[in-house]
């Protein structure tokens, strides 16, 4: 059965190519810092299951130390100039989009084929990992297509991938790091504490005010944890179920679904949701690392108001 382990081997190989490429890149003033950073990530992907929890913990601290000591930089070598790229773009025209579309197309058709045909019961792909496995398959097909069609030097994809990875830098590992911070928060009882605080400030007798506390609690806790998943069980236990549903007779489907969506408004406004908010700023080479959040805040606040209205009017119909 194809599961996450296969993907980790593939991703580890790509990170290993970044590490080796970094070590050999003389235009990067901190090439060994980059090599060590991506080398450690390779170790995590290939051997993480054998390192033990404490070994992995040391690895996490080492990644933090390398990034914190500013040992990461980027090379200055450009493989093609703007002029060359414009010439290539004229030569290959819109066919250039095809390999880029192979990845989403494989994921799309593959997921449909797998889920709606007898393939699903063959157990070929781990159900938890289906889309990501097909994404990986799409990457491999797209790479092979590029090799055959564009005939680049053998190492070119990995050089170019490293160029992008260098521009993202430490932000590329931040989402995974924040996920592990979430694990520590949970173990240290942060959720219980916040639930208790929220539970202590609930206003009595006014359903609208309770809805407000519920929605704002979801937003605030989501902003702290970086995702609404961690916030939901806490807020449901503190307010959603005992007060809004049992005491005030709210519609459970609305309280659940729209409460979660109120949390998503918080996800749009926090740097803790790094993969959505910080990574794209790096990926698009924005000057302001909070630029994406800034662009999202007005929509997020308007959506929060909309969700509160839906909670109140649809959740408590007489």
């Amino acid at each position, binding site marked *: 059965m194809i599961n*996450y382990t296969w*993907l980790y081997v593939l*991703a580890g190989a*790509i990170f290993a190519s970044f590490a080796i490429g970094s070590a050999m890149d003389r235009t990067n003033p901190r090439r060994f810092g980059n090599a060590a950073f991506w080398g450690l990530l390779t170790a995590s992907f290939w051997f*993480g299951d054998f390192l*033990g*929890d*404490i070994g992995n*913990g*040391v690895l996490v601290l080492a990644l933090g130390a390398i*990034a*914190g000591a500013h040992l990461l930089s980027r090379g200055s070598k450009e493989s093609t100039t*703007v002029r060359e*790229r*414009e010439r290539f*773009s004229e030569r*290959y025209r*819109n066919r*250039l*989009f095809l390999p*880029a579309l192979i990845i*989403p197309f494989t994921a799309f058709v593959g*997921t449909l084929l797998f889920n709606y045909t007898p393939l699903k019961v063959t157990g070929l792909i781990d159900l938890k990992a289906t889309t*990501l496995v097909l*994404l990986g398959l799409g990457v491999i097909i797209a790479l092979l297509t590029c090799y055959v069609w564009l005939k*680049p030097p053998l190492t*070119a*994809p990995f050089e*170019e991938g490293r160029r992008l990875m260098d521009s993202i830098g*430490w932000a590329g*590992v931040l989402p*995974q790091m924040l996920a592990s*911070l979430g*694990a*520590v928060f949970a173990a*240290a009882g*942060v959720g219980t*504490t916040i639930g*208790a605080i929220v539970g202590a400030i609930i206003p009595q007798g006014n359903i609208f005010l309770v809805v407000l506390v519920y929605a704002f609690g979801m937003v605030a806790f989501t902003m702290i944890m970086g995702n609404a*998943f961690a916030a*939901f069980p806490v807020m449901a*236990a503190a307010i959603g*179920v005992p007060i809004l549903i049992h005491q005030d007779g709210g519609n459970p*489907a609305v309280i*659940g*679904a729209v409460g979660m*969506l109120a949390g998503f408004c918080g996800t749009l406004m926090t740097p*803790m949701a*790094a*993969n959505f908010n910080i990574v794209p700023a790096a*990926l*698009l080479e*924005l000057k302001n690392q909070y630029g*994406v959040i800034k*662009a*999202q805040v007005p*929509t997020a606040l*308007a959506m929060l108001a*909309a*969700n509160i209205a839906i909670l109140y009017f649809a959740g408590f119909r007489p």
Partner: protein
Amino acid sequence: MIDYWPLLGIVLVVIGFALRFNPLLVVAVAAIATGLLGGMPFLKVLGVLGHGFNESRYVSIIWIVLPVIGLLERYGLQERARTLIVNMRGATTGRLLLVYLGLRQILAALGLTSVMGQAQTVRPLVAPMAVAAAEKQHGELDEDTGERVKAMSAATDNIGLFFGEDIFIAIGSILLIQGAFAGFGIQLTPFQLSVWAIPTAICAFMIHGARLLLLDRKLGVRR
């Protein structure tokens, strides 16, 4: 009696991010501090942190697309995306992003959340197209405007994803709500929950869509 000590880790994160220390370092330090203040011995905290990191590796898998995207950029992908938009009559930044928003919401609602994304589609295609359209409307972009158009491209992808995916019945968050409520003896089907994601999805399309068309007006489109 509420134990407030573990919350100090959150304060550390906020201060660290605000003072712009390296976020990886801030997170590592905050994790250790939170664990210690929560009464765990150091090695236990280190173990929880390491275990969490190992179990979350799937979060970083997305970077496997970089070699393909980078290679195509070497052969002029971004330039091609720009040319396509420049030659398309009536294409504006707002309209382009509006179409992308709708498409992202619909595909996410069908459960196809990884089909589009910041690395897969925004960086190589959507952002360069949006910038090219803005240049057509506005002339050359100053730095702030260029940043704003790119940031709006990334924002549109997130908003389309967040307010589309919950309509799909087998998405993680819907299953989480179902599971959490079942723990309190409230039985709901995923379908009952996902139906209630639809009003929010429509609001998102209208609210963010209106902002996108306003962006067009700011960029100087005459209608």
